[in-house]
C-alpha cells in the first residue's frame, strides 16, 4: 500500500522560517491523535532535521519538507537543494542524535543527487467505529 500524501513545503534556506514547519507538524500530529508530549518531541525532531540540512550546507537556497502517512506512521523527509557530502559540523550531528531519541526512526538516504533525512513516528491506531 502506498503512503498517503499529506503536505509538502518548500522554504528559503533561512533558519527563521523553520518555525512555520513546526506549526504545520504540530497541527498534523494533533489531528492524528498524538499526545502533547509526542507532538513536542516530533516538533523538535523535525527542527533538528531541518537545522542539520542547513548546517551541513545541503540546503543552500531551499529546504524541502515532505510529509506523508505510511500505514499509520507519519513519515517526514527533509532535504536541501545541493548534493552531499556536506560540511563537517559537530553540532549538526548532535542534533540528529537528539532527533533519534525523540521519534521511532531517523535515517539519511539518497534523494536524486542530494541526501535527505527521514523521520518516522508511529501514530495511534485509528478509532474503531461502532459495529453496524
Amino acid at each position, binding site marked *: 500500500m502506498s503512503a498517503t500524501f499529506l503536505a509538502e513545503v518548500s522554504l528559503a534556506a533561512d*533558519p*527563521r522560517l*523553520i*518555525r512555520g514547519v*513546526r506549526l504545520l507538524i504540530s497541527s498534523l500530529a494533533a489531528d492524528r491523535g498524538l499526545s502533547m*508530549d509526542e507532538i*513536542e*518531541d516530533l*516538533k*523538535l525532531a523535525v*527542527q*533538528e532535521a531541518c*537545522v542539520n540540512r*542547513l*548546517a551541513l550546507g545541503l540546503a543552500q537556497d531551499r529546504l524541502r519538507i515532505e510529509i506523508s502517512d505510511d500505514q499509520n506512521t507519519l513519515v517526514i523527509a527533509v532535504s536541501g537543494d545541493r548534493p552531499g557530502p556536506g560540511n563537517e559540523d559537530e*553540532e549538526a550531528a*548532535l*542534533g540528529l*542524535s*537528539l532527533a533519534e*531519541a*525523540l521519534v521511532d526512526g531517523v535515517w539519511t538516504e539518497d534523494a536524486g543527487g542530494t541526501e535527505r533525512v527521514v523521520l518516522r513516528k508511529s501514530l495511534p491506531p485509528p478509532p474503531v467505529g461502532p459495529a453496524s
Partner: protein
Amino acid sequence: MKRLTIETRTDGEVSVLSLRGELDVATAPQFKDALLPLAEAGGLIAVSLETLEFLDSRGIGVLVAATRAAREAGGDVAIAIPSRAQRHSIEVLKLDTFLTLRDDEAQAVAALTGGTR
C-alpha cells in the same frame, strides 16, 4: 514581535537572564551575544527558561559553551528549566551531569550562591 526576549537583572552577586519566546537556531546567536561576555568574565549567571516555549540543540549548545567559559574563568552558570520536554532533550544528549539544572529561578540562584549543585 521578537522571537526571543532576554531580560537581564541582578540578584545579589548573580546575573539573572530570563528568556521568553523561542531559543533555536535562529535566535541562538542573540542569546550567545548576551550570555557569553558575562560567562567569559567569570560571572555567576542564572539562566531562567521558565517562560521559554521552545529549545533546540543550538540553544543547548550556547548553554554548554557559556557554562564551560564561566567555569574556566572562575564563575558558573545554573539553569532554571521546569519544562519536562526541554529537560529531556538535555538528558538525551547526556549533558544533564555537566549543566546545573534546577526547577525554578530561586533554586538556580541558590545553586550558585549556596553551594547546592
